[in-house]
């Protein structure tokens, strides 16, 4: 109750904030004198206009050299600052060369700034505990910024990165709003499929992406990995996302760095006059691709043939589709009916930012809403508030910053994804509603798919992420700071299962209706004191950092199942239930502590050496295995700064060779796994609540280690108009922490243990950035990223004798599938045939599943083009993946069965034919059914090309000329996501490759952004 009102409160607050900013806009546009520097009292006022040679340049910082006084140019490029005649003004702006001008007696100083391509190398990159200049970094860090993020009408931060970063493979698992994404940074390190998540850090605060949902409640609508906690982070609040990939960058995160680190930096307050912005868009979304299914005539001819093949002349009483019970002339496109709707999206966000030399702030509020493509009235909504305050004392010694993100998510959807039924219902299945407008059960001859709309799923998530840094410069070269973080996530989800979802023929009433709820929460805090020191000597510059981490994360959940209601209208009130059962009531505690350090040495701005290390302790291990050490060394050589290059090869504007080697680890195994415990099973018997063994336990497992090696070459040509990065890496994971699968006779499916196996991930990453045109009115730049990632099981002692014998092969990738080899249809019997590897006359899984199929992508990447002409800006991103995927042949529908099938299944066997689909069967031909289910679904025929090229993102915007709106800048835009896909995939969508999960959506929006 408390949380509900809190979330309501935040929503109301956000709305009023947005409204307030909108209202303010009118008064501000009428009164353009909000220039903070007028407040200051200084001897004389200097004004002027800054341009880039084409038009005015807003946002340029104007500083008085040697003083702490600054100003920012407004949207007309104009500025106002107070200075003495002897002062020097410094004009700086990212991407442009800094200009210094002595004032003398001038009162008006107009400046034209020149673009500086090499300035990109000056950008400070966030490396977590420290930041480093792009040109000087020794580690491998990929980055996107708000510029890229704001072009995409998406709700999940992971979606914004798709196709934009080398070595980062992100796939969307479902198109249902609130659903999850899977991310792999440089391949799969852990054999444990759920042990490959990277570490997320938001403004210095570790953010757990553990799904707090209860699979019993959310599983049928939001499949694994479930509710994505990253949905609670509002993409438009993000200033930049950095992904740390190699040992040099990740070792300082020790045990949590094995799968890479994702650093999210939110927007910060900016110096300058108070700025307002409003951004709003709305649009529509539909599923990307559906299956090409049979129509009624095609379907019925298949079915009739199937029964004929089975030798059945008189159709069974239950074959309603062919025996005349259902109208044979009826046709429904169930995909259109059930998942073919249009989802509507709208989003608005508003921000105020500003500040003076010592204090800056930003406050942002946003609201997002999206309906679904399913029938029924369902929607996903998100409201978020973000703020940041920075302060530095007058003497520049003391600084403090505070940021907070609060979001309230509400996902009000149906309980079960309709995609599977949409693809499998017979095309002549009955009408959804009867004459009275009620659900039609057609005398129990079918399960009306809309029964599933009776069951509703509702999830409310409230998330707070707050971080603060307090720093003190003890001496010019010595700084002490402490980072404090707190996160609090609360999830309240529920699902109704009223008696009305069952066929009325069962005669069930509301006394069997059931209501599931789960309330879970997670709170964590962390404290990280750090001391950094840097000094330049004759022999070079040394930067050091030492720090410690303590972190605690507590989680709790309470799941209830209430059943037996006197009326279905009371179903969401557990108090009205005859019986309430506790499904789960758990709590967990995770504690983590570490010390870490960094030493960076540089000589002549050409040679860099970076050493990092960490000692970690984690409560997830038994008392003897708690601590472990990790460390890395990285080096970089900026060879283009050598005289030889600068003198003789001046076309090389930048050149860097870098490399790193080191170790990271992983403790991603869940809490308490080393203990032998019993938990409440949730069920009771004669009033005694049952206890059951929690797991097979192993007290001896310890840290997984991951050794990473990387070499990279970065090359800038022609003033960096062509910039190439090539990286090669080799990561080896050993001492793998896995749930070793066990046969059911042990009572459990697996046991947690270290596996003495080594997995190697190697790969090449290639990035190319070119500025193709750079004229005053027309600019065109292209960036390409391309990744080849290979995965290999290097060693696995006694693999043949282990429970993995049928799953892995040494020298092959982890995602290998050992399957039967499909050799075509038997021309005489019409049944699928497979290779009998050991020639023993029968097909046995262990001996004859010898064909190796890997679904690891061969390569993937993205190609982005960015064009601007006058006030027009066009960006489009193609994402491409070359891979094999799980196709329709493994969907579990036998050719001829009473489920609709793709039109490609019309090519059924004729005597003598060896290709196409096998002879139809209505399920009575044992041999055919067995060939399909036991062999075909587990053969190489169930895998085929799932490569695709997708227009992932398109953004076209037009900025209204300054002359139209004197004070404000206004941008109109069209954006699209997943606009079209080129693929030969035999199935619905090549990205999520699923038959039961909604494909990703194609989103098209239009919007307007105002800044004033």
């Amino acid at each position, binding site marked *: 109750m408390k949380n509900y009102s809190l979330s309501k409160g935040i929503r109301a607050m956000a709305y009023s904030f947005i409204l307030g900013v909108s209202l303010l806009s009118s008064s501000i546009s009428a009164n353009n004198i909000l220039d903070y520097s007028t407040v200051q009292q200084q001897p004389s006022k200097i004004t002027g206009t800054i341009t880039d040679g084409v038009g005015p340049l807003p946002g340029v910082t104007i500083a008085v050299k040697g003083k702490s006084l600054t100003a920012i140019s407004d949207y007309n490029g104009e500025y106002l600052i107070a200075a003495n005649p002897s002062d020097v003004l410094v004009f700086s702006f990212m991407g442009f060369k800094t200009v210094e001008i002595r004032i003398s007696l001038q009162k008006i100083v107009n400046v034209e700034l020149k673009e500086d391509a090499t300035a990109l190398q000056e950008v400070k990159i966030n490396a977590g505990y420290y930041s480093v200049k792009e040109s000087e970094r020794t580690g491998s860090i990929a980055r996107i910024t708000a510029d890229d993020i704001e072009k995409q009408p998406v709700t999940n931060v992971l979606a914004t990165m798709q196709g934009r970063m080398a070595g980062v493979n992100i796939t969307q698992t479902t198109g249902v709003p609130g659903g999850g994404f899977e991310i792999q940074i440089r391949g799969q390190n852990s054999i444990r499929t759920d042990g490959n998540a990277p570490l997320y850090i938001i403004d210095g605060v570790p953010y757990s992406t553990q799904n707090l949902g209860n699979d019993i409640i959310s599983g049928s609508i939001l499949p694994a990995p479930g509710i994505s906690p990253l949905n609670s982070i509002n993409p438009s609040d993000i200033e930049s996302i950095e992904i740390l990939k190699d040992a040099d960058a990740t070792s300082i995160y020790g045990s949590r760095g094995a799968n890479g680190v994702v650093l999210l930096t939110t927007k910060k307050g900016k110096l300058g006059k108070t700025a307002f912005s409003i951004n709003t868009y709305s649009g529509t979304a539909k599923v990307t691709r559906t299956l090409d299914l049979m129509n009624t005539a095609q379907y019925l001819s298949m079915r009739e043939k199937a029964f004929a093949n*089975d030798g059945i002349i008189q159709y069974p*009483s*239950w074959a*309603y589709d062919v025996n005349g019970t259902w109208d044979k002339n009826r046709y429904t496109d169930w995909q259109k009916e059930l998942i073919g709707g249009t989802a509507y999206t709208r989003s608005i966000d508003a921000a105020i930012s500003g500040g003076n030399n010592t204090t800056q702030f930003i406050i942002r509020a946003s609201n997002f809403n999206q309906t679904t493509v399913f029938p029924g009235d369902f929607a996903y909504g998100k409201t978020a508030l973000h703020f940041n305050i920075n302060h530095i004392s007058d003497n520049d010694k003391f600084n403090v910053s505070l940021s907070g993100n609060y979001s309230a998510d509400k996902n009000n959807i149906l309980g079960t994804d309709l995609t599977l039924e949409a693809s499998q219902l*017979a095309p002549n299945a009955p009408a959804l509603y009867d004459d009275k407008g009620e659900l039609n059960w057609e*005398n129990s001859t*079918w399960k009306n798919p809309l029964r599933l709309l009776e069951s509703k799923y509702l999830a409310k998530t409230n998330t707070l992420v707050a971080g603060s840094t307090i720093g003190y410069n003890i001496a010019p070269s010595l700084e002490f700071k402490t980072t404090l973080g707190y996160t609090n996530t609360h999830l309240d989800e529920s699902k109704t299962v009223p008696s009305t979802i069952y*066929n*009325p*023929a069962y*005669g*069930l009433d509301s*006394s069997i209706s059931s209501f599931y709820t789960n309330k879970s929460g997670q709170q964590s805090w962390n404290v990280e*004191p750090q*001391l950094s020191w840097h000094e330049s000597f004759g022999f070079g510059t040394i930067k050091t950092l030492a720090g*410690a981490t*303590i972190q605690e994360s507590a989680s709790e959940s309470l799941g209830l199942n209430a059943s*037996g209601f006197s009326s279905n209208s009371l179903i969401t009130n557990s108090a009205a239930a*005859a*019986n309430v*059962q506790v499904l789960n*009531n*758990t709590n*967990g*505690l995770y*504690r*983590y502590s*570490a*010390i870490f350090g960094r030493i960076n040495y540089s000589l002549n701005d050409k040679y860099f050496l970076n050493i990092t290390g960490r*000692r970690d302790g984690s*409560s997830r291990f038994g*008392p003897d295995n708690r*601590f472990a050490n990790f460390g890395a060394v990285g080096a970089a050589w900026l060879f283009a700064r050598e005289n030889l290059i600068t003198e003789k090869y001046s076309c090389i504007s930048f050149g860097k060779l870098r490399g790193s080697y080191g170790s990271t680890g992983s403790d991603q195994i869940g*809490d*308490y796994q080393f203990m*032998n*415990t*019993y938990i409440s*099973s949730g*069920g009771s*018997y*004669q009033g*005694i609540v*049952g*206890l059951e*063994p929690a797991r097979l336990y192993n007290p001896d497992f310890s840290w997984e280690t991951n050794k990473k090696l990387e070499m990279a070459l970065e090359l800038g040509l022609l003033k960096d108009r062509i910039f190439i990065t090539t990286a090669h890496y080799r990561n080896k994971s050993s001492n793998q922490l896995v749930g070793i699968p066990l*046969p*059911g*006779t042990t*009572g459990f499916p697996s046991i947690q243990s270290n596996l003495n196996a080594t997995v190697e991930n190697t790969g090449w990453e290639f990035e190319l950035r070119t500025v193709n045109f750079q004229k005053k009115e027309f600019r065109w730049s292209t960036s390409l990223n391309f990744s080849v990632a290979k995965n290999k099981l290097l060693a696995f002692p006694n693999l043949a004798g282990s*429970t993995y014998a049928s*799953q892995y092969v040494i020298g092959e990738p982890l995602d290998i599938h050992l399957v039967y080899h499909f050799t075509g249809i038997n021309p005489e019997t019409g049944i699928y045939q497979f290779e009998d590897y050991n020639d023993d006359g029968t097909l*046995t*899984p*262990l001996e004859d599943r010898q064909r190796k199929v890997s679904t690891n992508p061969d390569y993937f990447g993205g190609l982005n083009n960015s064009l601007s002409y006058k006030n027009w800006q066009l960006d489009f991103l193609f994402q491409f993946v070359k891979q094999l995927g799980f196709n329709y042949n493994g969907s579990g529908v036998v050719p001829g069965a*009473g489920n609709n099938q793709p039109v490609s299944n019309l090519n059924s066997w004729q005597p003598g034919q060896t290709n196409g689909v096998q002879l139809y069967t209505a399920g*009575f*031909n044992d041999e055919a059914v067995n060939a399909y*289910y036991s062999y075909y*679904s587990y053969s190489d025929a169930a895998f085929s090309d799932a490569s695709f090229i997708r227009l992932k993102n398109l953004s076209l915007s037009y900025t209204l000329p300054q002359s139209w709106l004197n004070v404000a800048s206004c941008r109109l835009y069209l954006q699209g996501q997943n606009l079209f896909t080129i693929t030969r995939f035999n199935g619905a969508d090549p990205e999520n490759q699923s038959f039961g999960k909604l494909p990703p959506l194609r989103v098209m929006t239009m919007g307007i952004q105002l800044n004033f």
Partner: protein
Amino acid sequence: MKNIAKRRIVFLIATVIGLIMFISCESFVDIEIPNSQLTAENVFKDRATAQAALVNNYMKMQSNVLVTGNFNGISNLLGNYADELNYYGIDGQREEAFYKNVVLPTNSTISEIWNNTYNLIYASNAIIEGVTVSTGILPNEKGQLIGEALFLRAYLHFYLVNLFGNIPYVTTTDFRLNSTIVKKAPAELYSLIIEDLENAKLLMPDEYPSDERVRPNKSVAKALLARVNLYTENWGAAEAEANSIINNTSLYEWVDDIDKVFLKDSPGTIWQLIPQFSGNNTFEAQSFIFLTGPPPVSGLNNSLIESFEPEDLRRDHWVGTVSDGLDRWYFANKYKENNNTGSSREYSILFRLEEIYLIRAEARTHLGNISGAQEDLNKIRHRAGLSDTPAVTQPELLQAILKERQVELFTELGHRWFDLKRFGVINEVLQTRKTGWNSTDVLWPLPQSELLLNQNLLPQNPGY
């Protein structure tokens, strides 16, 4: 001056960092066990918690595992697999593969039954091991807990051997042994089952350990022993165990009213499972009953309906009929309450006196005690409103017993299926009644996932 202050600050900060590091390295990462969990040691320190671990198995059997009345239990599945139920669904429901006798090694219901049953066997073994070494539970309390766990281990293995044929007999919680365990032949399995039951009999009390006969007592172990001896054709032992239960008239009474047999306080009930929620009734009723035709999933097979003699009361009292004017469909109506009734009226019965009489009748027939067998058989028939059995010879009597078992025990825990196998008539009966019947269908396939994880379980059952 300034320098000294600076040094002090540095010193202070260094101390703070040092302290934090000290704390972090030593004890910070020591955590307590959460209050939602209990160490195994503590569970078996106390009788109440040990009991909670034990009854959890019954809860699972009632709601979800193997003998549950739910759709995934053997009453429904073997009903479809044999000739008791007719499948009417069209859209590929769980029952379809069972009804068509095309259950494949990859069938998820098969591996669910296998895994869940072995999970309960693990839990039983954990109780046996935990209670044995416990210091907190009194010796006399130990006997009853271990006895029930031993019984349960035997009971679960009994069904597995009859469903799957050669299987491993698991008697420890050690996963190293259990992950490479080998299969045993039925003869050996039965001797292990009998050994566990004999031990259980010694430990279990005569009285029920709790109200309403929802936890097994010594008679339940005897009832299973009677059944096992019948299945293994130890007629003498089967009769002896049956005698011991039938003669225990202080506990068990014959119910003359056909409508009271399945009520929760029926004195003929030997062991039943209580639903979790007060007022709830059986999953059997929820799974089998339907109000309009055609049935949403399965209805009773016509061959079963035709097996009732014309005046058989069970035909009307235990079978429900639905008609749309043209067609008629039938459902098992032994359990009548499918909704919540405020206070429960019916529990799921696992052993009832009628089966014991039928066991004794069959054993007596084989032992040559024709009149004794007729007497037992007639006891069943009389209550159903039927006259004495006309069977007189041994083969006639066996035939009559098989038929009586069909109409008395239909849709109860796969009795029909096991009987057809035991009597050696399964091929001749099902060949004519089931399209796609194969003689190798007498055993379910071992789950494929299991064979891949433990090669000692090879070979797969014939025909798969």
